[in-house]
């Protein structure tokens, strides 16, 4: 059987314009080759900057921004699509090859109905009549498990949820009956419980329609569920390329082995959970418009330990952090810190109270002033809380940088000159500089690649051993909870579902929501998705 897509020796470059320097040509992808048969799925996996999206888009002969495909061939059914003119390319895109973007919320046009957008490519390429296209869209909405498929197409993008949009985007790609679909991290932006549904829908739909797919992701566990072959990429080059079974079960390269074994660290919880540092007592909170976000939440945290707050987006977990810091005063209830009740609002707290609770954010990028050096960023709390300056301050900043395993050579760097992981480390150093007793970590690793994230988690645990600092760790990732928590709070729709020591919360008997959450986390195991779906079906049949 001839290959549907055959990529040979692909080379992709971009021109970057560093300020004050002559333009520089950067090679993004080099020497990448692969083949894809009809109806098969190839997973492209790697960390950010590995070139996986760039390779995916080359199947549509498309380069984002200033990206150019400068070498190699992309053969679709034996024809090199890189040699086509604009009209030729347009007859391939949206007809033979379709694309599913990472953020469907941004990729749908807010001004048009979903149905019109889903059938647009089919109509414009003259593949089917409007009636047929509408019928096919309806069929696809059903296959993808969208609610009210008959009226779904009449809605606007802002009227449906993120998971539904992602499925609608898949329907849009499948509608013209393409031979190949490029999925660019289609589930990365979704909650785990939503991700599993979308993943199952995508898998079902491509099997049903015999469409081939390039599935791009950074999550090996996800790609193991859906692809026949896997290609591991790093820095624009192929690391390993083989069948899914071989890559997952017998990886040849060290890098792949690291990816497979990532996030398998587990820590036992502290046995003694007395000596309360933070106590949250029947807290209710609402936004300015009267919308209630927290309902009667109570939990507590012992000194030198970690409390993981886990939940999906909209569960109120970040709001709880804002309540603890005083940014959003609770409408009812109280927060006790080290035996003393904290003033509700930030304004009412003393400097000393502020110093003892510090915070690390999800996006280290936006939490740092881009025009300050690492020295200024980390030094600021030193002068603010301790009145340090001059040589003493520099010395202390150097110590802190050693503590986060970076060293004083980073003193005069700007945030833009640091990698994502380094920025998050600097943010940790800034929090540590105040010598806090409690650090609130709001998803500090969710924007990072798995290996980098693991480094940050290990650092946080090391710092806890050294300084006995306590953490409230907000996350949506059960694997992280397993790795670092002593006690766990599960939140759902602004309410506390479950709270207690880790061993108790994460073992049966479960409530329905915790059960769903735990079962939705992809495992590094081929056939996991089928297994979960099967037990789900049995359960629903049993009900």
């Amino acid at each position, binding site marked *: 059987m001839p290959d549907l897509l055959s990529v040979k020796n692909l080379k992709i470059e971009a021109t970057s314009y560093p300020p004050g320097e002559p333009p520089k040509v950067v090679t993004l992808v080099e020497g990448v080759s692969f083949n894809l048969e009809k109806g098969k799925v190839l997973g492209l996996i790697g960390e950010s900057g590995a070139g996986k999206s760039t390779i995916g888009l080359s199947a549509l002969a498309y380069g984002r921004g200033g990206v150019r495909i400068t070498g190699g061939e992309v053969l679709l059914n034996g024809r090199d699509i890189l040699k086509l003119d604009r009209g030729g390319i347009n007859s391939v895109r*949206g007809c033979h090859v379709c694309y599913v973007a990472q953020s469907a919320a941004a990729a749908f046009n807010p*001004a048009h109905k979903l149905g019109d957008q889903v059938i*647009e490519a089919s109509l414009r390429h003259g593949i089917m009549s409007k009636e047929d296209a509408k019928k096919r869209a309806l069929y696809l909405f059903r296959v993808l498990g969208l609610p009210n498929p008959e009226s779904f197409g009449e809605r606007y993008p*802002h009227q449906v949820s993120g998971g539904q949009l992602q499925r609608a985007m898949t329907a849009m790609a499948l509608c013209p009956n393409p031979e190949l679909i490029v999925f660019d991290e289609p589930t990365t932006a979704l909650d785990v419980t939503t991700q599993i549904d979308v993943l199952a829908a995508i898998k079902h739909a491509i099997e049903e329609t015999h469409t081939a797919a390039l599935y791009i992701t950074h999550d090996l566990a996800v790609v193991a569920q859906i692809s026949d072959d896997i290609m591991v990429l790093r820095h624009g080059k192929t690391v390993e390329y083989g069948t899914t079974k071989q890559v997952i079960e017998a990886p040849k390269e060290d890098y792949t082995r690291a990816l497979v074994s990532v996030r398998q660290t587990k820590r036992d919880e502290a046995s003694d959970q007395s000596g309360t540092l933070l106590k949250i007592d029947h807290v209710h909170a609402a936004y300015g418009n*009267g919308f209630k976000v927290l309902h009667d939440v109570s939990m507590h945290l012992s000194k030198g330990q970690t409390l993981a707050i886990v939940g999906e987006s909209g569960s109120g977990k970040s709001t709880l952090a804002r309540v603890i810091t005083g940014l959003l005063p609770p409408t009812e209830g109280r927060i006790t810190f080290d035996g003393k009740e904290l003033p509700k609002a930030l304004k009412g707290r003393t400097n000393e109270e502020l110093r003892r609770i510090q915070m690390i954010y999800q996006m280290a990028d936006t939490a740092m002033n881009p025009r300050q050096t690492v020295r200024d960023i980390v030094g600021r709390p030193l002068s603010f809380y301790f009145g340090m300056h001059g040589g003493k301050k520099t010395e202390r900043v150097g110590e802190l940088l050693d503590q986060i395993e970076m060293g004083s050579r980073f003193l005069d760097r700007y945030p833009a000159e640091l990698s994502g992981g380094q920025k998050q480390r600097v943010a940790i150093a800034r929090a540590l500089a105040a010598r806090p007793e409690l650090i609130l970590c709001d998803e500090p690793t969710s924007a990072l690649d798995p290996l980098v994230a693991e480094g940050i988690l290990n650092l946080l645990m090391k710092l806890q051993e050294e300084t006995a600092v306590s953490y409230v760790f907000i996350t949506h990732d059960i694997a992280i909870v397993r790795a670092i928590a002593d006690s766990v709070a599960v939140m759902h729709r602004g309410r506390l579902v479950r709270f207690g020591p880790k061993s108790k919360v994460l073992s049966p008997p479960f409530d329905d929501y915790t059960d769903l959450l735990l079962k939705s986390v992809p495992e590094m195991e081929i056939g996991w998705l089928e297994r979960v779906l099967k037990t789900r079906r049995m359960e629903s049949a049993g009900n």
Partner: protein
Amino acid sequence: MESGPITGPVLTDGVAGETVPRSADLSGVPAKPNPAAATGEIGGTFWRRFVLRRPLVALILQRLGLSVGLLFAVSLMIFGGIEALPGDFATTYLGQSATPQAVENIRKDLGLDRPWSERYLSWLGGAVKGDFGTSWASKNSVSEQIGNRLGNSLFLAFFAALISVPLAVGLGMLAVQFRNRLPDKIINVISLAAISLPEFFIGYLLIMFFAVQLGVATFPATVYDSMTLSERLSAIALPVATLVLVVLAHMMRMTRAAILNVMSSAYVETAELKGLGTFRIIARHAAPNAVAPVINVIALNLAYLVVGVVVVEVVFVYPGMGQYMVDAVTVRDMPVVQACGLIFAAFYIFLNMAADILAILANPRLRHPR
């Protein structure tokens, strides 16, 4: 009152280049309904509940209310501003050598001896009913005289808008399609040149070429009641051309910037990856989302066409509101100046309100709440 900006409309928000300063999809729509709140528990007053349930109606009612309030504020400012002007009608009318007694008599005749708050209220009461009092200079009804003049001004503005708006939007879209290529550059340079020249200069240039040297156009552009429509149209050809040249560049560049801003969004990439043609991408996927900022700048320019034609009317000796107002200012004929000021302000506020409401309507999030 002021005599209008001299070199065409001011570039609001500093839009001169590629970027749109405000987010394209929501500019002009400061208040967004909270999507979470629509389904959640809603507390608060009746108005707050209404805002959450019917965001669109609430926003439009808000705009209407604001506009009426603003108009009253402006009426107060016009009256107060004119009160504060040095010199008065009596001294201008009687000349330098007038006796204090004569000046006093005239002031009494015109009711200027009453306190200003009383005069303001009686003026406002009349204005609300459409009665702007009697001109001090000609002793005629101001409303009657303005009625004629306003018709002429609107006639001129209407034809200028009819030509300039489609032309500007079309050229803007064309410039996007040929972005950074020759047609784009030509459109940019010519429109920039037109906006950079003061309108009286453009006016005189046009008169020199088309009326004096080629003799194909009519000058002066004075119109009479007895003229037929075609005679009128040929008379206003040059002033309309001047106005079009003045307002074109601003609208064209804003259209271009707004569409370019939208063109870099993810949904335009989606459209591109559907294999759609460039024009369809611009017209169907980019344009609807660029409408709000473009409507704003169009409204601003329409308002300028009505309010700012003073200079053009004087250059072309066109009997419109602008000329009437300039004449009234020179003789301190306050009822006329006040009436003209209030009518200009009303047009300005109304057009901006209309732009705001259209921008709200162009936002699918507000048109189709969850």
